[in-house]
């Protein structure tokens, strides 16, 4: 692994060599005619050739730096020649100056070019040498994740909020009257017996763990003037033991609309929007009559199976596992809010009408994400939520 510790070796920027350049030589103060030979054109050409050869031969920036002093330094032949110019008679200065200047220019250019080449080579080599294996683990801290039940609720809520609905909430430990009576589930109503309610001690407290999110609808109707368009997600409780399809604590999401002129056609429209959000734009619904005390008329909705697209595969070898072969999946109950319920909430049923529908979020999750049973959703095993990240 130590090879990868290269993270601490930050790439070195190409070294700036400019500060190393030889300064211009000063005027020649000790004129020595013996040395004037330095201005001999042949010698200058030879010095240039030697310099170019040395630059070309330098195999590294270090070698280049080493030979540079000999050819460009203060004691180099061309520097010497340059100094000699000052001692020349004015008539010779121009020509000699031009020759030496050109020669020095060629040498400088050659060194600069070679410098550039070697820098590029070095930079490339550094990048190669600094290579690490980026496929080794990078996360030192395991990322967290949201629970898909919450994410699914958010997804549905957001879609409805986008259509202009609002979110309503209420307590989980709820008054019995709000959970049952106000929803037209009187103490002797057969449907009340279907609900397996958690009662509290003392049992005559008039309080229960809510068996549905519908009391939120009642609270909303009691506390707000129509028009009302609310979606109510939340936890509900029934005395079922945990198994593949039941859990004593689960989640529902319900929609309630109260306005002037709402019909079952609007209910159907809202249901259609709901299944499209959840299961895709192609999803169609079919409806039939059913009975719920809270609504009259009541409706049961099925939607076209998103897995087999409605192919009737029942009894065949390819029987669809999502819908069980019927081609349709039951969504849940709905209906027009019972007039008795409206009156209980102080809403005049002759002016306003409304609809309500709901479904279990666990079921939606099972369908949409292929979750096989309730256990994974309630046990809290890290591996379950982590599959979903921050958004399902």
């Amino acid at each position: 692994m130590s090879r990868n510790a290269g993270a601490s070796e930050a790439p070195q920027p190409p070294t700036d060599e400019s500060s190393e350049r030889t300064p211009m030589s000063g005027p020649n103060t000790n004129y020595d005619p013996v040395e004037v030979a330095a201005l001999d054109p042949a010698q200058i050409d030879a010095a240039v050739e030697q310099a170019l050869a040395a630059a070309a031969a330098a195999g590294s920036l270090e070698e280049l730096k080493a030979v540079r002093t000999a050819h460009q330094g203060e004691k180099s032949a061309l520097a010497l020649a340059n100094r000699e110019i000052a001692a020349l008679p004015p008539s010779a200065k121009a020509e000699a100056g031009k020759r030496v200047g050109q020669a020095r220019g060629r040498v400088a250019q050659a060194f600069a070019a070679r410098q550039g080449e070697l820098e590029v080579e070095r930079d490339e080599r550094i990048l190669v040498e600094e290579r690490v294996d980026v496929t080794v683990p990078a996360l030192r801290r395991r990322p967290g994740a949201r629970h898909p039940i919450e994410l699914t609720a958010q997804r549905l809520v957001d879609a409805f909020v986008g259509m202009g609905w609002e979110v309503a909430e209420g307590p989980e430990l709820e008054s019995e009257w709000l959970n049952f009576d106000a929803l037209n589930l009187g103490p002797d109503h057969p449907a009340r017996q279907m609900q397996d309610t958690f009662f509290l001690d003392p049992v005559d407290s008039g309080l229960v763990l809510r068996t549905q999110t519908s009391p939120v609808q009642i609270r909303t109707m009691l506390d707000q003037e129509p028009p009302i368009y609310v979606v109510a997600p939340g936890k509900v409780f029934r005395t079922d033991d945990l198994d593949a399809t039941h859990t004593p604590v689960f989640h529902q999401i319900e929609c309630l609309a109260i306005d002037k002129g709402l019909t079952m056609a609007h209910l159907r429209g809202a249901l259609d929007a709901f299944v499209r959000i959840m299961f895709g734009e192609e999803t169609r619904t079919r409806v039939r009559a059913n009975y719920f005390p809270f609504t009259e008329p009541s409706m049961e909705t099925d939607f076209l199976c998103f897995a087999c697209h409605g192919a009737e595969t029942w009894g065949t070898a390819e029987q669809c596992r999502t819908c069980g072969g019927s081609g349709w999946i039951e969504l849940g109950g709905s209906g027009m809010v019972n007039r008795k319920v409206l009156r209980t909430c102080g809403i005049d049923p002759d002016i306003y009408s409304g609809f309500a529908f709901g479904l279990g979020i666990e079921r939606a999750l099972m369908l949409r994400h292929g979750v096989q049973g309730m256990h994974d959703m309630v046990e809290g095993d890290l591996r379950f939520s982590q599959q979903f990240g921050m958004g399902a």
Partner: protein
Amino acid sequence: MRMPLSWLAEVTDLPPGARGADVAAGLVSVGLEEEDLHGGDLTGPLVVGRVLDFTLEPQKNGKTIRWCTVDVGQNGQMLTEGKHQEIVCGAHNFEVGDLVVVVLPGAVLPGNFAIAARKTYGHVSNGMICAEDEIGLGHDHEGIIVLERLLGAEKAAMLQAGDDAIALLGLAEETVETNVTPDRGYCFSVRGLAREYWHSQGSPAGGYRDPADVATPQANDSGHPIRLDDDAPLDGNVGCDRFVARVVRGIDPTRPSPSWMQKRLTQMGMRPISLAVDVTNYVMLAVGQPLHAYDLAKLDGPIVVRRARSGEALTTLDDVERTLSPEDLLITDSGERPLAIAGVMGGASSEVDDSTTDVLVEAAHFDPTTVARSSRRHRLVTEASKRFERGVDPRVTAAAAQLAVDLLVEHGGGTADPGVTDVDHTTERTAYLLDVTEPSRIVGVDYPRERVLAILRDLGCTVDEAGEGTDDTHVLVTPPSWRPDLVDAPDYAEEVARIDGYNNIPSITPTPSEGRGLTHGQKARRIVADALAGAGYTEVLSYPFVAAELADQLGLAPDDDRREAVRVANPLSEERPLLRTMVLSSLVDVLRRNLARGHKDVAISEIGLVFRPGGPLAKAPIPSVDSRPDDATLEQLYAAVPDQPRRAAAIASGQIEQAGWWGPGRAADWSDMVAAVQSVAGALAVPVVVTNDPGHAPWHPGRCARISLADGTLVGHAGELHPKVLAALDLPPRTVATEFDVDVLTAASEEPVQASEFSSFPPALTDVALLVRSEVAAGDVETALRRGAGESLESIALFDVYEGERVEAGHRSLAYRLTFRALDRTLTTDEVNAFRDAAVAAAAEATGAVQR
């Protein structure tokens, strides 16, 4: 409710070739959900067999099979090999000599399950001895069918090995089973179900033949005397408003019910018992009226229907002695001896038996509430109670009694008494003035007046177009006697929509005009959840049920208000009867479960409600539902619901940063928990203050942070859990946790953030090392430094804490970097030094700090 196709065909016309699935689909189209299909999808040979002998053979897989020889008459191996059928059977609920149902090779059972002779458990099994579910007779798979038990000994005695079991059990034809909703009690009869099927076929004229349409004799005074004597009606409704009694004498008690009736009862999922009982059941299934047959010889006087007296008891037909409640309605002999719990179950003492010759048939109409309460009170759901609870047609009473009398006379050889008792206190339904445009308005489909009226008439309603109040849009509708559910316009609208077809309803997306989006609280909660996930915690959802011992395990003080928990009266587990007062209480279970599954490094969080009753539960009122409760009552109702704050908790154990090529990992410690709360508060832009809290369970007294708002309001706690708590909860050492109040943070983040100005001049940095006594909180030092440093202090960072040889014992050195910046200028060194000195002076004054 089941219905064989042949019975359906007696009542209404079935299209030629109609199959069970077609009938079920028709019923679904009018709102009756399909439950199951029985029979029809089976081909024989399926025969009656008699077990001749068997040997027990234990198998390697732990099972013991029975290697049986079964007499199947002139079938199977008898024809091909001249010997009795040899079959391997896994069930153990039969004896040698029992009559069973045998499927022979060549047969096909429901689900396209072809039967062949096959090798199994070291033998060739020539077919199979069948259980109920295997032949589509029922759902029972506890053992195989023993015909003596299924049909009764008498009936079984008449069977012979080799008899065709398909005909015997009515398996050749299909039986449709539908789920009947509570509003459609009339569909607990062939009469009602067939009517619905007829509707699904468009209600063709003359296509429905009411099985209750029989002539009934006029009531007279010579019948068995009946007295309805309810002195305590429930909710103003008398317990019994109609009682028909008929007597048939001279029945031959040895005569069984006819085989066609037995077959139908079996198809309907009931067991044939005796002629009298079978007849009452058959008529109930036919027309929906529960009947009861009494042995007349066991009655002494008039039948009196009255409420039970406290202390009274009755042994019901199921041989259970039941203590009666004054709300139970009783059928009594002369007002004294209880004979039956009305509408629920008869008593053993007046039961018809194998010597009964004179039978009194009771057909009565009982109050749904009375029956529902008795049924619930005695935990006794019977065929009768199911029907009475949902409402029985009060006009079918006499016809039902007549049908029973006719069958008893015909098949039992008895004679009907001329005396007919019919005490009838029922009243006619009043007509409802229906606005015929109302169904269109409710459903959203344009139904012409004539369509509405035709549907109502088909349903059995009487429609008066000329009576008082009627006009172009209003008619007087009287619902049929079997439809107590039809009361007002929405009920009729549903019927019109249902019969016209729900799928004719169009889809119109509603368009609310003003949506304000999510509330601040709803948004804030998402931010909290996302921030926790962002900080590395995996969100879980735990059950809120906790054990009573948990408060002790958490080390809560005796007066800690978190001990005050709501108790569930009927918990799923007696070990966990309380509702959590902290999210942490249930989150620890999830941690333990993850550890048990081999996860060593766990960091999880949950946001949820906790239940804080603050004392015994207040009693919530149950106001009337006739109108909106008044404000005072509503206030009382809301106030009775205990406080349920929303809290978040996180718990972590093991490494929070993993070991890897970069080096060792880092174990989660108290600071991760403080950081988690700070991250959440930061995400909501809420400043929080951290102080040491040495006394808050369940945390380690030396490693617990109290986190509060700037004004001191408690947000929550974070840190390492108390070692004793960890030991008590069987959690790993050094497990760390936090719990904080989401509502407090939500409220604190409600106001919009007010941005402060910041400087663009260069910062001036200065470091200061302070020597303080070890017990001085760094947080207090920082607070003092901030106060002393003045407005130009931009930030402060504690970059080193040292305790050791180089400082005085009992002291520690805190090194801070102060960053200063003024809004309007570059600060001079002198200015910065002066600010620093002032900061140090403030720290010295507040905490005794000395600059090193």
